[in-house]
Every structure is written in C-alpha cells, then in structure tokens.
C-alpha cells in the first residue's frame, strides 16, 4: 500500500515539475497502457484466463461513451459509468458463455479473439456507430465536458490506474483473490475445496472488462475519435497483453513496469534511423524477444527473484 501512495504522489507531482508536452504525453500514454495491462492482468495474471481479444471490452466502453455523447447528447462524465457498466455487461456475456461451456487455455483465448472480430464487423455495419466513418466527439474544451488540459487528463488516467492498483492489491490479499488464484493454479482442486469456480471467473472477467471499458472511454476523450478498427482491432488487444507479460503476470506492479519499459523502448527506438522506416520497429521486436528470452518470469518476477 505504501508503494501505491508513493507512486501516486510521484506521478501527481509530475505536471508541476515537467513542462515538456511530449514527456507529459508519454506519461499519459504509459499510464493508459498500464491501465489496459492491469485490466488484462486481472483476468490473465490473477485468474489464469488469457484473452487475445480484450479489445472487445475496450471498444464497447469507447463506443458506449461516444454514442451516448454524439447521438444522445449525454454529458461525457455521465457517460463514463454507463460505458463501464456496459463493458462489464459485455464481460458477463462473454464470460458466462465461455465459462459455462468450460473454455480454457487457448480455446478461451481464441474465443475472445473471435468475439472481438464479431463486434468489429458489427460496428462496421450498424448505423448508430457511424459504421466505417467512425464517431468524432465535438470539440468543446472544458472540464465539465471531460475535455481537459494535458495535466487534467494525466490526473484522470492516474486515478484510473490507482483504482486498478488498489483492486490488484485487494486481489492479492483478499479471500476472493485467493479463490481466483486458486482457480488459476488448479481449477479442479479449487472446485474440490468448494470454490464456486464459475462465479469467481465471472467476477474476474467483469472486473477486467470494466477497467478495459474505462480505458476505452479515456481513449475517446483524449483522441476524440473512434472507429471500428481502433475500437476492436488487434492493436489494443496486443497492447493489453504485452505489458503484463513483460512486466510480470499476476503481480500488482507487473503491468506498470511492463508498460513503462515497453513505451520507453518504443520511444528510444522511434528516433532511430529516420530515413529507413521499419528499422526502429525491427529493433523493438528484437529487444522484445530478447527480454522474454532473458527474463522469462517478467521484470517483476525477476526483481523478486533477485531480492531473495
């Protein structure tokens, strides 16, 4: 808990001391990636259910917020809880279906991928989402419209991340969290011990989906535009899983470390070899493979190992 306080304090002070727009933007993007990773980590790291299509919850939250604002004139802040609720509902739907039929491991991963694609095609064909054209939010800067200054956005995403940190901390130390981790480690044994496996997993996916949806809402407010491939495409799903795996699955700080390292890696490679597009991403990919190769337990796992 102490770590969470220190972290919050440090990041909250950043806008005071840092004026560089690009550094602050980087911090916001790192926090955003962290949130996505934390959401994924709840289901995968703590729950042991790997999802390849987590964008399905992100997109639902994003579209919910965008549609409520653009088509029904809702206030952005009012749309936030509605979008989160809708995201959780999507989690409940997909979770209920998948867990009821006992999908696990790669099968579960692939079914989430399929759902993300289904939603993507739907979004492309259903009129109220604007279809392929996407939805643009009207530019109305102001705190009451959730269209803030950079520092404002930083505090909002920080708040989301802190909530996710608290949830992760709770999962590590609570009874529910113990059930969840038991299911992850050995579902049959957990069931034999009386854990309601279905309910526990359902709870985890709903929690995970809710946080993902919050990330979607944030994206829409920050970039003011959403379309089916941004909302439900593989980019978000991949971003959500990269951080926790690199940073350390099933740990509270894993997603934070992972998002930090990956984004910094992206930034440092970005400037490389300007005139040869693609080289920077080759380096990124190579470093990624190297990291997995030498740090198989993720950063957090390795750090913990070093401590002992």
């Amino acid at each position, binding site marked *: 808990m102490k770590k969470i306080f220190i972290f919050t304090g440090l990041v909250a002070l950043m806008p005071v001391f840092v004026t560089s*727009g*690009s550094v602050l933007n980087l911090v916001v*993007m790192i926090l955003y990636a962290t949130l996505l990773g934390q959401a994924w980590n709840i289901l995968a790291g703590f729950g042991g259910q790997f999802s390849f299509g987590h964008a399905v919850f992100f997109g639902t939250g994003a579209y919910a917020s965008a549609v409520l604002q653009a088509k029904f004139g809702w206030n952005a802040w009012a749309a936030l809880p509605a979008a989160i609720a809708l995201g959780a509902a999507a989690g409940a739907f997909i979770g209920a279906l998948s867990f009821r039929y006992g999908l696990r491991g790669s099968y579960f991963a692939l079914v989430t991928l399929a759902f993300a694609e289904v939603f993507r095609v739907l979004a492309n064909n259903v009129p109220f989402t604007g279809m392929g054209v996407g939805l643009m939010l009207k530019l109305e800067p102001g705190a009451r419209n959730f269209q803030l200054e950079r520092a404002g956005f930083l505090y909002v995403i920080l708040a989301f991340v802190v909530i996710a940190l608290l949830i992760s901390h709770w999962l590590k130390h609570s009874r529910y969290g113990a059930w969840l981790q038991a299911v992850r480690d050995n579902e049959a044994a957990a069931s034999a011990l009386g854990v309601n496996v279905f309910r526990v997993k359902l709870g985890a996916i709903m929690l995970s989906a809710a946080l993902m949806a919050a990330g979607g809402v944030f994206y829409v407010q920050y*970039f003011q535009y959403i*379309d089916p491939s*941004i909302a439900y495409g593989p980019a978000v799903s991949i971003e959500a899983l990269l951080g926790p795996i690199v940073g350390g699955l099933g740990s509270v700080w894993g997603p934070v470390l992972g998002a930090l390292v990956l984004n910094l890696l992206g930034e440092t490679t970005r400037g490389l070899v300007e005139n040869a*597009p693609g080289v920077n991403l080759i380096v990124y990919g190579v470093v990624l493979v190297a990291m997995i190769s030498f740090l198989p337990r993720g950063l957090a796992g390795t750090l913990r190992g070093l401590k002992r």
Partner: protein
Amino acid sequence: MNKRRQFLLNTTALAASSALPLGVRAQTPIKVGVLHPVTGFLAYSGNLSRLGATMAIEDINKAGGIKSLGGARLQALLGDAQSQPQAGVAEVEKMNEAGVSAVVGAYASAICLATTQAAAKYNLPHIVDVGVADQIVERGLKNTFRFGPGYKTVTEASIAQLHVLNTVAGKPAKTVMIVHEESLFGTGTANLLSQQLPALGLEVKEVIKHANPTRDFSNIVLRIKAVNPDILIPANYYNEYALLVRTLRQQGVQPKAIYSVLGGAASSYKFVKEFADAANGVLDVNHWFNPKDKRAWALKKRVDAMPDQFFTYEVYMNYTALHLLADAIERARSAKREDILRSLESSKWSGHVMPYGPTQFVNGQNIGAAPLMMQVQKNDIKVVLPREYRESEPVFPWKA
C-alpha cells in the same frame, strides 16, 4: 520554373545575401514537421507523401530558401505516424518541442483528426496534405489548413461530371452499382452517391461494401455480372481496386464504364504499368496535377527517374503543401507560428501545379480545390474533364 525566373531568383538571392554581413549569412533554419505513416499498413502512401515533402524542401532550399528571411533554409523534421493516431499525436508533441514552425501531414483522415487537434493546443499551423474527411476542417480549429479537396467536394464534382459525361453521350447509362471499402472514405463516398445519383436519372441498383483487406473479389464480380449495371463505381484503396479490376477482366465482365471516385488505383501510374490491359478505359475523379503546367511534367520526369517511384497524388500534394507553407512564411516575413497562421489565412498563392486557381482558405479549406476526371487510354492517364484541363476526349461508353 523557367530559366529566366530561376536566374532572377538566384541573382536576387545572391544580392540579398551579400547585403548581409558574413556572420549573419547562415540563417537559423526554419524547422518544419513532416509527419506521415511510413510504417504499418499505410506505409506505401506514407512513404510517397514523405518523398513529395522532402523533394519540395530540397527545391525550396536550392532556390534560395525563404528570401524575406535572408535565405533561411527549411529543415525537415521527419516523423512516423505508424499508421495510427496515437503515434501521430506523440510525434506532434515532439515536433512542437523541437520548435517546428509548422507541421505538414498526416495523409490518413483518422490520423489527421488527431494530429491537427494536438497541434491546435500549441497554435501550431498544420497543413493537411491529403486527408479527405470533411470533419477535419469542420471543427473550427484555427490552425488547420487543407489545400486539397475533401471527399464531399470530390464526390459532388464526380456526380456533376458523370452527369455531363452521360448527357453528352446521349444518356447511354441508366443503372449504377457501387462497390466501396468499409471505412471512412468508402462509406462516406457511397452514401453521397446513393443520395444524389437518382436525381440525375441514374438508378443505384446495388451498393456492395467490402472489408479492408478483401482477399477475393470473385463473388463481388459475380454479383456485378448478375446485376449488369451500366456503370460500376468503385471507391476503394489500391490493393482492392487492382484485385477487383483483374477479377473483372478474368470473368469477362465489362460494364459501359468503370467510373471511380477517389479510385485507389485508377489514377496510379503504378497500376497502369502493372495491369496494362485491365486498366484501359477506367475513369477516375481524383486528385491530379494541372496537365497544362509544364512544371508538373518536369516534376514527374524527376520522380519517374527515381527507381521504383511513381508520380502519385501523395507526391505532388505534399510537394505543393510544402510550397504553400514556404510562400506563407515568405509573405509573413517571419517563422513565428502566429504570423504563419495569419499568412496562411490570407493566402492567395497561385504558384502551384494543381488545378485549383488562386488559393483561398475559408474555415481552413481551400475553396478552389477540386479534383479532375482522368481516363486510362492507351496505357497512359489522360485528363478528360473539365474542359479547361482536357488532354484527351473521354471515351464513354468504353469499347474494349
């Protein structure tokens, strides 16, 4: 530019520079952000866009830089938008911090929406090179300037010109079928066409939407065969367009005309070169240079001489965008952002190779911007409409 103008420019530059003390001769360069998706799925267009921009900066500097600022040179700060808005925004932030006077880019509409907004925070002038979505200039952002036409302008022009084409030929076409890609540009174009074509006596028999990418057009062509429209209107990107046209040829389907609107491949020299037989006869209403302007042909020659490069709209629209900026800086006599903004707002620049006439920005849109109609004839692309830019008579309906 002709020899006399070049000579005058050179001597003026020489005179101006020699009037300054030697120490001041080397002016601080004016930094310009050149932002395009050079990796990811838009890489092809992004790289061509970057080519146009960097060629322009080279030419501007070779011609003496910004004369009113003592020959100050333009310096390109290259950025990669990685085919997604997130990366584009990050680059704008970096460019802003590097002290750019303006940003040119970012090719794709979705990316442009985000980058123009990010630039607006810093009152940073952002010239949109291509990005055809009309929302880009409809948000009231004072820093956004689009030199070329938006898709509404292009589509409306295409409708008007199709009407002319059909009427002059004695109205041989009565039915139309639209095949469009599913994202912003395809859907928007198809919607406008569906709404307005019936009023011109053209029945829209069917509208087919397809994904990006589409792996196979056999069934779409089957439908086209079954519906047998007089005119087929494709609105998609290069890869799909090429596959579609090839499949049409394989199946022996030949409508009276293939009339594209912002056709992905139709007005592409690369397409004409690689799909010679299938390409002939295709009509396209698209971005194009002024065929009556010798400078455009000189530019084309230079690009053709580069290995594996083609003189596409990405190249010359960026080329002109940079020159638009240079002219604005020149008239502003300053590299400061507010001054450039004001200068762009009042721009009347006509020293370009596009068929737009003198520039005039209204709410960030150059209202003179318009597309041209081209037709592929004898393995070459010729402008057929409007008359003032005509290189060749349109052949409508097309006989193989």
